[in-house]
């Protein structure tokens, strides 16, 4: 019998379970071809008898071999040595050669290049409201309401690529009311991942090498998304009236997309003037380009001039409007929205259905009620007055603590653009930021071209007054030491 030929001596002192020892010995025999592939192994009962062990131990040994792929057990016909053994393939390269270098796609390579160049990272710091300043008890109530009703809602819910209809209706009416956006729920798209908005647009509308006009300085995340999808960027300057539209006319070929932040230019804070808005809309209509209006923080204006959106002024249906709840509601909800022109509704429905067909129903339903019951506007009003005070405080603290060359005058947003005077050293500032944990970041990443020295964004919103004052004090002390 096979078992006798194998000379299986169990070593009870080794501490290795008997089943493992048997499995190992059999495995070796199979690899060494002492037992040929396809041969039927002795039954569990025979093995147990021959080795004087319990049947369950023998069975465990066979199970282990089976799990590792050396034997196959078939009902009624016993256990056979596998005809194809693991690791025995002749075409197999040496193990250390396998997947040493991964062949990435063009897209993957572009990401890797930008990462190696230090332009993009996989992680960033959290910038958003303080959890304790959010209406958590309201949100909890809404969760209870919808977690409870969920089984019923769920069983009838058919995921829609554009999102849960009651949420779309609620947000559309909010946008109409607050931002004068021309929107109906069938043109409003809900995104769980905000990043997908520009990615989908870039893929739907841009071929490799197509031109996208962007503000310089402008949002680096947007720029990187266009670049990763193979687009070229045309940098268009900004002044205190926003994007300098005349520079668009100087381009040799017209861009397919124009990405702007007219409500509050990132990072300079400029509000695009009426005149410029008209020029830009005219340009886009004449040159068959789409405008992407990123209305990322328009909720936060402190001097009482809530300007209507650019999209609302556009009579040619050329503007794609982006909005999101991050600044008001992160980390409780981070849903993003996009309002698309009619011709894009169908392609976008198809495209969205492929990458993000459904968003958590509980979150969507809770958010719809949050908006409909007026909590959102109440929250924003509260935040606005709170942040206005913080901004004012920061301004007076700054005047005392630092020697600034320029502070952006626009009374809006969640951060303050500050230029320090030349006599400060960049390296020393970096150190002082690190040691004081002041929420101050260089605007370097906003520039595709040469950055401005000693220009920073100081975030004032998500930090209590005393905390900010303390950090600023520490910062100034570190800087002047």
């Amino acid at each position, binding site marked *: 019998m096979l078992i006798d030929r194998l000379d299986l001596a169990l070593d009870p002192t080794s501490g290795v379970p008997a089943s493992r020892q048997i499995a190992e010995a059999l495995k070796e025999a199979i690899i060494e071809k002492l037992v040929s592939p396809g041969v039927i192994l002795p039954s569990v009962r025979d093995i147990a008898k021959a080795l004087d062990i319990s049947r369950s131990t023998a069975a465990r040994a066979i199970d282990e071999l089976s799990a590792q792929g050396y034997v196959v057990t078939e009902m009624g016909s016993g256990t056979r040595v596998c005809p194809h053994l693991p690791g025995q393939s002749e075409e197999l390269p040496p193990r250390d050669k396998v997947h040493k270098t991964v062949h990435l796609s063009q897209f993957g390579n572009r990401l890797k290049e930008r990462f190696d160049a230090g332009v993009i990272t996989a992680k960033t710091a959290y910038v958003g409201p303080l959890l304790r300043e959010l209406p958590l008890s309201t949100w909890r109530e809404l969760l209870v309401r919808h977690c409870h009703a969920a089984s019923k809602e769920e*069983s009838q819910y058919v995921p829609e690529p554009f999102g849960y209809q009651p949420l779309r209706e609620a947000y559309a009416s909010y946008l109409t009311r607050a931002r004068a956006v021309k929107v109906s729920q069938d043109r409003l798209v809900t995104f769980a991942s905000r990043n997908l908005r520009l990615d989908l647009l870039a893929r739907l509308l841009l071929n490799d090498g197509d031109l996208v006009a962007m503000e310089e300085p402008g949002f680096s995340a947007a720029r990187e998304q266009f670049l990763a999808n193979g687009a070229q960027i045309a940098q268009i300057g900004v002044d205190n009236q926003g994007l300098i539209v005349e520079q668009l006319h100087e381009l040799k070929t017209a861009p397919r997309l124009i990405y702007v932040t007219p409500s509050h230019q990132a990072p300079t804070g400029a509000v695009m003037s009426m005149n410029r808005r008209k020029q830009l809309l005219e340009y886009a209509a004449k040159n068959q380009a789409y405008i992407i209006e990123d209305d990322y923080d328009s909720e936060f204006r402190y001097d009482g001039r809530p300007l209507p959106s650019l999209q609302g002024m556009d009579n040619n249906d050329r503007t794609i409007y982006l909005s999101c709840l991050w600044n008001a509601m992160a980390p409780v909800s981070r849903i993003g929205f996009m309002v698309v022109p009619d011709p894009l509704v169908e392609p976008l429905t198809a495209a969205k259905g492929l990458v993000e067909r459904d968003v958590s129903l509980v979150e969507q339903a809770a958010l719809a009620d949050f908006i409909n019951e007026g909590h959102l506007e109440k929250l924003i009003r509260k935040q606005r007055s709170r942040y206005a005070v913080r901004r004012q405080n920061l301004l007076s603290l700054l005047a005392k603590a630092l020697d600034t060359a320029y502070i952006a005058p626009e009374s809006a947003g969640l951060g303050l653009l500050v230029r320090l005077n030349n006599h400060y050293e960049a390296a020393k500032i970096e150190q002082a930021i690190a040691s004081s944990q002041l929420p101050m970041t260089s605007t370097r990443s906003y520039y595709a071209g040469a950055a401005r020295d000693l220009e920073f964004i100081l975030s004032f919103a998500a930090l209590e007054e005393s905390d900010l004052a303390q950090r600023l004090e520490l910062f100034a002390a570190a800087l002047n030491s």
Partner: protein
Amino acid sequence: MAIAIYLEYKSNVALYRRLSDALRKAIMEGRLQLGEPMPSIRELSETLKLSRSTILKAYEDLKTQGLVVAHSGSGTFVASTLPGDLGELASAFLSAANRPVSFKPLPLSERGRTIFEVGKRQATEHVHVPALEYGGTPIELSPMRDWKTLMIKHCDVSREEQVAEMIDPLGLEKLREAIAAYVLRRRSISSGPQNVCIFGSKQLRLELIGRLLLNPDDMVAYEEPGYPENRNTLESMGVKITPIAVDTEGLSVAALRRLPKPPKLIYVSPSHQDPLGHVMSMPRRHELLEYAAATGAFIVEDDFDNEFRYGRPILPSIKALDQYDCVIYMASFWKVLYQSLRLSFVVFPDCLVNIGALGKSYLERHLPLLEQLALIDFINDGYLEKHLKQTQRVLAFRRQSLILAITRYLKDMVDPLTDGGGTHLILNFQANLFDSAIEQAAQQSGFNLMSTKPYYASTTKSGQYIVPFASVDQNSIDNVVKTFALALQKQSGRNNDAN
């Protein structure tokens, strides 16, 4: 109520008049809706930095125009009907405002056209039918109560600490640890938390993998039949899908070897082939791994249906056997919490961990915080496995009663039953029965079944149906199948007469 108001500058027009014009415009455009309250005077005076008296005057002006009405004690409202000609004007304005005239639309890009085409097909072809609840666990077994408790527990200020962590695109560290331990326990995968990446959308998993590894026209080997949704996600990137036949041991590696050149990616669902339900045999798993290692291809192991099995031994996942660092493993919690829990995950091979994190932060940077925190407890405190165990028991019972009914009434109409998947059986009707007759009979009798046609990319197969049993009612199923059998006999008799 926040409202965007732009006070147009007109010299020699009084301020209150400019305000009432702006408000009038807002009413006309439907931004202030009929019958709804007007913004409060306090609010307008705060946001616009105008005096109360100016605002009062503007409201008075609107009142004389019949656009607003004041209800004593409850404030000012937009009129519920607008005065005569103004009403028509408003509706004309409204339709024009909401539907701007389109110029010639921008043509889509080349890849945009592919995406559009594939996405449109998916929308028409793979219809989601809630009544079928195919694949999900039955609603009445859903652990919604536990989930609610956990969600509420974490909706709390004391979670402030964790907020900074939520911006990790890979997901919360603690959740990745919980998942790493879970897949080690249940699927023998020993990769560790650093290889785990959490996703908010199931579809983004394959989107990310495809985008990072595939160029247009690259070849992907895909099970035939296979899950259409994932095939579509890949196809929308312009890659070439090569259907590879499936036999009772799973994907045919012999067919892979016959390809003129090896594929870049191989998509398989080895735990329960979707939809046929075959479990990939152990030798086949090794053979596939070695083929992939030898050709430099990556394997995507979609382990979406591993939770429930009936009388068959559990095989370790391909990822657990992978010594060549070439298996990308994906799974989700979709079966457990049908619609509420959207989180799913990928376990990357070591060689893809870094680029995977980079790609993830590009496609989906932020994940929902509360859901992640709740899921950590759901896994670590044993809710998940307790739920799976309970559900498995109920499902086994329902499956059995369905099998009984089928053997009793449909024996002569279908091929012998195979194992099927974790929540469905596959019925192969005999060739003389037409799909139209089968579907009509199903509709008449309330028997839930779904054709496998969308699962086939190149071949067509008729008479093959998925029968989900997760929501089968064991009291009535016998009767339903009996009615179905009778209806089908009648239908096909009619068809044969017609022929």
